[in-house]
Every structure is written in C-alpha cells, then in structure tokens.
C-alpha cells in the first residue's frame, strides 16, 4: 500500500524533487547508521563518510570486475563494509570518547585518498557505478531518477524496519546499558567489547549500503564524493534528527538536502552580495547545529515526547 502511495507521489512530482527524494533516502540510511553507533551504543564516529566509501567501492568493483547483478552488489557493499566495521570496532573497542573521535576523523580523511594508490580503485577520477536503466515494462516516462528514488526509498524502508527491530531487541538494550554505564553493564553480564564491536559492524554495514546508494545516484565512485564534510554532514543530520532515536531520521535528512535552497531563498530576501550568498548555507548549518544541541539536544521528537510525558504526569498529580 505504501509502495502504491510512493508511486503516485513519484508521478506527480517533478524530476528535481524525485532526485532530492533519492538523496533524502540515502541520508536517512546513513543517519540511522550513526544513530545506532553513537546514539545507542555511545561510540562517537566522525568517519562514517569513509565507511560509505568502502560500501560504494565494493559495490562498484563487484559490478564492474565481476559482473554481479545489481541487487547483489548492494548486499556485497553491506558485507564488505560490515567486515571493515568489525575490524575497526575491534581496534576501537579499547578507545573511548575523544580517542575514538580522533581515530575516526583520521580515517575519514585518509581512507578515500587510498583510491589513488591502487589501480583498480580508479584514482581521483573514480570508477563508474551504473545500475542500469529502469526495466522497460515500467514505461517510457519512468525516468532514471525515478528509478533511483524507488531503489533508495525501498532500501531505506527495509533498513529502518530491520533497524528498529534490532534496536528494541536484547542487543539494543545491551547497547543502551553500556552507553549509560559501562561498569554496571559489565556487572550485569554484558560483554562490553563484543557489544561494541557488534554495534560497529552493524553500523558500518548500513553505512556501506548508504554509500553504495549514494554512488548510484551520482553514477561514479570517487574519493571526492566522500570528504570529511560528508562525515560531518551525517553527524549533523543525526543530531538534527535526535541522535537517540530513529523516529526523527527523516527530519535531519530533509534539512540536509533542502538547506541550500532555503539559504538561497533567504539570501534573495536579504538581497545581499555574492560573498554572503555563497557562504550562507555553511553559516546556517553551523548555527542550526549549535541551536539544536543547546535547545533540542535529544532531537525534536524526543522533545515532543518528553513534553507530552510531563503533561501526562501533571494531569495525574
């Protein structure tokens, strides 16, 4: 039923919005992976852009060198990035707070540049990632971008469903316990390092999926698509959504994709110079981040719930 709804929407909306919809779906997946790792398991990562890169490269190489069908390439992206995540998690299990942040920061900067060192990774130019045209039976007006949107939105829905199930399971509870107080959690019998590594592995796998989808929308996999700024954007989106819960993920993703347009509109209202206009999106994003952390630290959805809970409590007393 939902699919039909999306199909209708996809037809009514013009191509630019459809493309943006695909980008939003990609960000939803990326943000949720970070919410898992940082919000639930309490491990800060500034390097999810690098994990996305791993997913993208594995998918592209699988497609180009081994001619693997498109659907499978996404699974391969998840698998390889999950393995990388497990390794990273194992290395990082002994680290906490700023040490972990520093390591992931260095990873975010260093990893994409590896592409220049190894031939099959295509160097700065990157390698193509072509998911092919939409199947003919969907008709002539079913554009490439609609196809992207479909694939990305479907992946996002599946991902969110799986993730919410996992988070409300025993594993999710273990992570939250470990986040609040590691010693207490260990006393309760939770194996902290295994729990942390699991979080990393899962988060990485999901990030890898997001990376492969992102490359699908651009059509190429190159290091310059996975800059440090991307890692920061995902973190920003996670904070704007409410880093501790999945429910608000759309909000963060939408803001990230729409912000340049909003900035444009604002700039035209003010009628300002070139200098101000080109820097306005950066300014707004930074300001938004600070305001969110200060006033809505757990995200707008949690805020809403908390207020509702307070009101309910007041009513009772």
């Amino acid at each position: 039923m939902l699919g039909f709804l999306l199909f209708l929407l996809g037809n009514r909306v013009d191509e630019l919005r459809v493309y943006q919809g695909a980008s939003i779906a990609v960000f939803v997946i990326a943000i949720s992976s970070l919410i898992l790792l940082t919000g639930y398991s309490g491990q800060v990562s500034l390097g999810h852009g690098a994990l996305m890169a791993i997913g993208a490269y594995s998918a592209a190489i699988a497609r180009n060198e081994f001619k693997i069908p498109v659907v499978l390439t996404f699974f391969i992206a998840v698998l390889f990035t999950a393995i990388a995540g497990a390794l990273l998690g194992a290395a990082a299990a002994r680290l906490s707070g700023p040490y972990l942040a520093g390591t992931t920061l260095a990873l975010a900067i260093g990893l994409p540049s590896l592409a220049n060192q190894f031939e099959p990774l295509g160097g700065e130019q990157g390698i193509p990632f072509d998911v092919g045209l939409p199947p003919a039976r969907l008709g002539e007006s079913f554009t490439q971008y609609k196809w992207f949107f479909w694939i990305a939105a479907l992946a996002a829905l599946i991902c969110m469903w799986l993730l919410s199930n996992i988070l409300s399971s025993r594993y999710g509870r273990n992570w939250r316990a470990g986040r609040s107080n590691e010693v207490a959690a260990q006393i309760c019998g939770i194996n902290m390092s295994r729990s942390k590594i699991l979080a990393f592995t899962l988060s990485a796998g999901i990030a890898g999926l997001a990376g492969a989808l992102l490359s699908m929308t651009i059509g190429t996999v190159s290091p310059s698509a996975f800059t440090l700024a991307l890692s920061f954007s995902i973190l920003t989106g996670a904070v704007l959504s409410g880093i501790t819960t999945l429910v608000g993920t759309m909000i963060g993703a939408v803001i990230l994709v729409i912000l340049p347009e909003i900035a444009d509109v604002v700039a035209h209202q003010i009628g300002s110079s070139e200098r101000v206009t080109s820097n306005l999106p950066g300014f707004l994003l930074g300001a938004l981040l600070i305001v969110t952390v200060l006033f809505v630290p757990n995200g707008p959805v949690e805020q809403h719930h908390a207020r509702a809970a307070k009101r309910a409590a007041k009513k009772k007393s």
Partner: protein
Amino acid sequence: MQLLNTILIGITAGSIYSLMAIAFVLVWRSTRVINFAQAGMALLSTYFGYEAVTRIGSFWLALPIAMLGGAIIAALVEVTLMRSLVKHASTGPIAAVAPIIATLGLLGLLRAVIAMVWGGQNLVIFPPVSNAGFTVNGEVLVFSPLKLLILSTTLVLMALLSLLFQRTNLGLSLRASAYAPEISHLSGIRVDLIRTLGWALAGAAGAVAGIFQTVNGNGNFSPDSIEFALLLVSGFIAAVIGGLDSLLGAVIGGMFLGVVIAFVLIYINSGLFFIAPFIILLATLFIRPQGIIGVRAGRRA
C-alpha cells in the same frame, strides 16, 4: 643530506602541530572537551593578525595582538556556548557527543563568517625574518631563521605553560577544576573563571599556530586554506598521540607526527599524504592506547 633535510622539515611542521596540540590539551585539561572549532578560532586570529600587520606594519606587534584576539574569542566562546552546553545538555546520552557537535557547528559558522566579512580571496602575511635556508658546507638546508623562530617559540611556550601548570597556584587550580570541579568549588576556587582562562590560553596558542602555519607556507591564507584543515586534523592527532593529558605529550606527539609524515612523504610516496596520519594514529593507539605520555585512568571521560 636528504636525511637531514627530511628531519628538519618534519620538526618544523611538527612544532606547528605541537602548538595546535597544546591548544587542544589546554582545553581538554580545563574543561574535558575537545574543541573542534580550534582551527576556526586560529583562522580568525590569523585574520586579526593580518589586520594588525596591515595597519600597524609590524609582525612583532601583530603576533601578540593576534594572540590576545584569539584568547578573547576563545574566552567568549567558553562563556557563552560551553556554559549553555553544560546547562542544557550535560545529562543523557547526548552529553558525550554534545560538545563535539557544538564545536563542529561553531567551526562551520566561523568559517562562513570569516568568508562573509573578508571574502574568499587569498591574503598574505609576510614572514618577519628570512625563510631562506642556512648554508652549511655549500649546501642549502631546509632550515631558516623563520623555522628556527617557530621551533624556539614552540619550546618556549611549552616551557612557560608547563611552569604555569606545575609550579603556580593558578596552575594547580586549573588542574583541580578539571578533575574535580565540585571539590575545587568548595575549596574556594572560582571554577568558572579558571575554565575560561584555560580556553583563553588555548585560544592564544592556537593563534600562534595559525600564524606560523601561514608564514611557514608562502604566507597565503583564505577561509578555505588547506593549511587550516591540516592544522585541525594534525593538531588533534598529535594531541591524541601524545596522550591528551600532558603538554609535554602534545609537543612530543606533534614532533613525532611531523617527522614520521616527512619520512613517509619523502622516502615512500608523497601520495600517502592523507593516509599516513591515520596509520600513525592507529599504530600508536594500538601499542599505547593512552598515548605516549597519557595516564591510563584519566583517559575515561
């Protein structure tokens, strides 16, 4: 000859990383926060320095002015942003991440504001002393009066700060406020002021790092200079390698990072410029997770 030059290149770059690392460590020790906006503040201080040099004409005056500017900005940020952060977001799961995110937001904000005010074009600050290499036995070394200045300033600053922390009451207060704010408060220490002071010192150190990074290059800088992105990352990595708790560690970490990167770039492959810091960091943390001089217990924050 190449060996000597490599070491010299590494040490000079390393001392600038050390200055930045010192700034990170200062903030960490006084408020237990990693300030990612450090590079943005260093950039802003560099612009202050530029204005000073352009209007007054003396680098030697401009440097302290930039340091003062950096200190004031840092103090302002601590008073407004960080205190609100403590008020609003110090409980719950967001607590660990909140300062990181807030300072990241500040970094973007600072960069955008600088670009709006001064524009995106390159500006130049010329070094105060010659950067032409010393000639030894007819060979020109990659070491010049300027590099000597950078190196000595770093060492002097480190010595001064260590003295401050270890030998004075102020330093004692600084250390106490970081580790046990409630008890310090009870002892009559003005914890708030102390924290602000820590940030101010860091701001000054960052300003020096920013200006030196600029003049050590070809004097160019702009809101998007790659030098400042490098400064942020390398400074932070250097601080982590040295163990976030010690100023000496910051300097050692910075020098270590600078020299190893120089060796990798010259002897192995200059394409490894970006991946080298990561490998070095990972290797160091693997062998010694608390950093070179870090204290095990103090790592958990």
